[in-house]
């Protein structure tokens, strides 16, 4: 089976190479048959990569420890689910996962465009094929998932215990898929540049692909945050680790792109800017794969390091230089179709939104790269950690939220003074009132108060605009409230899906603000029967125990939780010592409510019989995960295709 997988990869590489060259040669020599064969070759490459993917799954499922990758990442005592999830636990498997998901995206794209975009498709095929060929080539020549052990072993090393969590299914797959899915919009953009067909055609073709890539990457990022929160045991969800940053950068630039293509579709403006955004989004996605898998920067994801870096850098350099050169060549044809009529218009707010989003992405990029720059310039190693990112990006995120609230309140082209007063009055009043009330209730940290006030303003703005539209529809069509709301939302899904996504950002920002500004933390060493207080909670240490399972030793502790004398329940934070890994893994106990999380980390039992704990109270964290769900809903609404109405 390993031979079959490797052979499939070698042939897939040849097919991808053919799919890259054939459409371009076919165009040059006007040979439609060659162009068609290029498409077929891409189909073939995608199918062969699927064969390789299925082969690796088979080897994992049968625990074939003769295969090095299976030996390194699985063991007999692992559940089948985690055994299969080891597919993306290491470098070689991740490369195969990337190539496979890109292949699946390519197949969907080929089916979607079998009868349209005929002028663009040869270039799109070539770009997708060359990207796929790059990943397949890496496997064939550098990091082969089907390598066989020189001395076959009867048992595997097993998965890193940190990876044995539901997050293993929710975090890497969507994140890796998101990186790859951005290839399709990029391929269409390059095709538009190459053909000079720079109108709406390519934008129309990639809107849903961009939402899909943006959503999957976003889901992956948030799943990673949730995983870090429950598994890494430090009580936070964003450590500004280089690999986390690597995912955030293309997501931020992709967000800017999603917004600015609206301006191009509506007003024929920002064409050069949109090209630049999608070029950077794609290249940042490849940079994300590089940072995830190269280990060039110290990271909590350092269970997967390799020497793939130079090849990734070369690929990014070629992709970036080539696409930017093409963009420069086409600049004269990318002039805006309309000009701006007034300073105060929705177009202007989109520009500010784009500036801030790209600015945050740049700040994250700069912070990620600054240790390398400093070491090169000064020869000194430094760390760029959470205090830097919080101070630099915090104010920018606040501005972004503000712009998010302002944008829907200003009309396209021009907003009169009366119009501005009418649209802004209630949301601003609501935001100010919320700020004052919160201040009176004791929310006195200026940044937190401002953040909550801005969130109130944004929410009021969105709801007001939506409710006005529902009211107008009710009056015009004599519909009930619910019917008018559903019909209105269905009639303009991109707009109202976008509003739901904005509301999800508000919900998440609530959680982030609360947990950032008002956390409580304490550590305590307790004898059984002793208590500790944190916030409104009193915790009593009942005792510690140890027991053995098939794969690990479990060190467990039990604490009862009280508030105001009332018994709330018990929490059981644990530590696992896995058979194949020396470092114990923290299994935190979290008691979540909408108001706050009680977060208990078990430090272990001391020789004198005491046990050490770290206790945290993280306010409003649950809102971040609720916002995640709302974001999925909003994206689904925006993504969902319009129903075709059948007429007799």
């Amino acid at each position, binding site marked *: 089976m390993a031979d079959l997988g490797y052979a499939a990869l070698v042939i897939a590489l040849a097919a991808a190479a053919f799919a890259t060259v054939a459409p371009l040669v076919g165009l040059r020599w006007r040979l439609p048959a060659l162009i068609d064969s290029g498409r077929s070759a891409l189909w073939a490459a995608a199918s062969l990569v699927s064969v390789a993917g299925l082969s690796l799954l088979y080897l994992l499922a049968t625990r074939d420890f003769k295969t090095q990758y299976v030996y390194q990442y699985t063991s007999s005592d692992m559940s089948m689910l985690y055994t299969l999830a080891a597919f993306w636990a290491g470098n070689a498997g991740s490369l195969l996962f990337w190539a496979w998901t890109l292949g699946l995206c390519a197949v969907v794209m080929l089916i979607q465009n079998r009868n349209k975009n005929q002028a663009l498709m040869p270039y799109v095929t070539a770009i997708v094929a060359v990207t796929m060929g790059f990943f397949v080539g890496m496997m064939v020549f550098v990091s082969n998932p089907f390598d066989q052990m020189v001395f076959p072993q009867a048992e595997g090393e097993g998965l890193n215990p940190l990876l044995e969590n539901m997050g293993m299914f929710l975090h890497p797959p969507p994140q890796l898929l998101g990186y790859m899915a951005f290839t399709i919009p990029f391929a269409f953009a390059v095709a538009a540049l190459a053909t000079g067909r720079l109108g709406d055609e390519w934008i129309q073709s990639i809107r849903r692909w961009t939402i899909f890539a943006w959503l999957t990457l976003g889901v992956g990022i948030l799943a990673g945050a949730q995983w870090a929160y429950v598994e890494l045991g430090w009580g936070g969800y964003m450590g500004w680790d280089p690999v986390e940053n690597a995912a955030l950068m293309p997501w931020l630039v992709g967000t800017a792109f999603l917004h600015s293509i609206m301006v191009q579709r509506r007003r024929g403006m920002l064409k050069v800017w949109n090209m630049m955004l999608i070029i950077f989004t794609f290249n940042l996605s490849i940079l994300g794969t590089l940072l995830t898998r190269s280990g060039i920067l110290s990271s909590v994801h350092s269970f997967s390091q390799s020497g793939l870096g130079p090849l990734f850098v070369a690929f990014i350099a070629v992709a970036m230089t080539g696409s930017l050169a093409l963009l420069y060549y086409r600049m004269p044809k990318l002039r805006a179709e309309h000009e701006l009529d007034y300073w105060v218009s929705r177009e202007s707010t989109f520009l500010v939104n784009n500036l801030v989003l790209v600015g945050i992405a740049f700040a994250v990029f700069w912070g990620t790269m600054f240790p390398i720059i*400093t070491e090169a310039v000064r020869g000194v190693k430094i760390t760029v950690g959470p205090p830097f990112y919080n101070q630099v990006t915090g104010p*920018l995120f606040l501005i972004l939220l503000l712009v998010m609230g302002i944008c829907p309140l200003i009309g396209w082209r021009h907003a009169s003074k009366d119009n501005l007063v009418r649209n802004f009055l209630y949301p601003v009043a609501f935001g100010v009132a919320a700020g004052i009330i919160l201040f009176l209730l004791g929310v006195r940290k200026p940044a937190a108060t401002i953040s909550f006030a801005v969130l109130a303003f944004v929410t009021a703005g969105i709801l007001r605009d939506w409710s006005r539209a529902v009211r107008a529809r009710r009056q015009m069509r004599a519909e009930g409230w619910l019917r008018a709301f559903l019909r209105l939302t269905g009639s303009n899904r991109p707009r109202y899906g976008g509003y739901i996504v904005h509301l999800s950002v508000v919900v998440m920002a609530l959680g982030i603000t609360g947990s950032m500004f008002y956390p409580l933390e304490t*550590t305590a060493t307790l004898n059984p029967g002793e208590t500790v207080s944190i916030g409104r909670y009193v915790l009593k240490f009942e005792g510690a125990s140890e027991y053995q399972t098939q794969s690990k030793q479990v060190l467990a502790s039990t604490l009862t939780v009280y508030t105001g004398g009332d018994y709330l329940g018990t929490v059981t934070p644990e530590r696992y010592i896995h058979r194949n890994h020396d*470092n114990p893994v923290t299994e935190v106990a979290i008691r979540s409510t909408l108001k706050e999380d009680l977060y208990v980390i078990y430090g272990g039992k001391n020789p004198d019989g005491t046990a050490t704990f770290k206790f945290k109270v993280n306010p409003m964290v649950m809102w971040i995960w609720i916002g995640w769900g709302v974001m999925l809903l909003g994206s689904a609404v925006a993504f969902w295709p319009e129903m075709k109405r059948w007429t007799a």
Partner: protein
Amino acid sequence: MDRIARLAGLLALLGLAAATPTVALAASPDQVNEIASQLVCQCGCGLVLNNCNHEHCEPRDSMLAYIGQALDQGKTRDAIIASLVESYGEVVLAAPTKRGFNLVGWITPFAAIAAGGGIVYLAVRAWLVWGKRTREEAVELAADDPYLSRVDDELRRYEERMG
């Protein structure tokens, strides 16, 4: 070797802190946590010092012990951080200092956004100028067009008739 030298430096610091005759002030966990949140654990976990959750972490335990002792002896936050930097190097700080070349790290993102803002401002201004010119040209064209003049005349007569 590097690690041994750092550990030796830290032990020297601990010794110095223990030997300094000062009035003992009990360091609160919050004070220790606040200082620890500005530092990175040197065990290789890459996490902020008070977030390292390794069971047996020599660097974390030594550093936290040093911070506690130094606070007890009345040392200031800055002095404690400075002595840890002396022992481990700048890499122990969770964020670059706001001095010298490190300032480039802090300023560049804002400078880039300011530059971007300048470009956006110039672009918007240029678009506004072109937009105004386009509208004026459209008005001039409309004034010269006999058909549009006829439409205007008829509209005027219609409005007069309608009162």
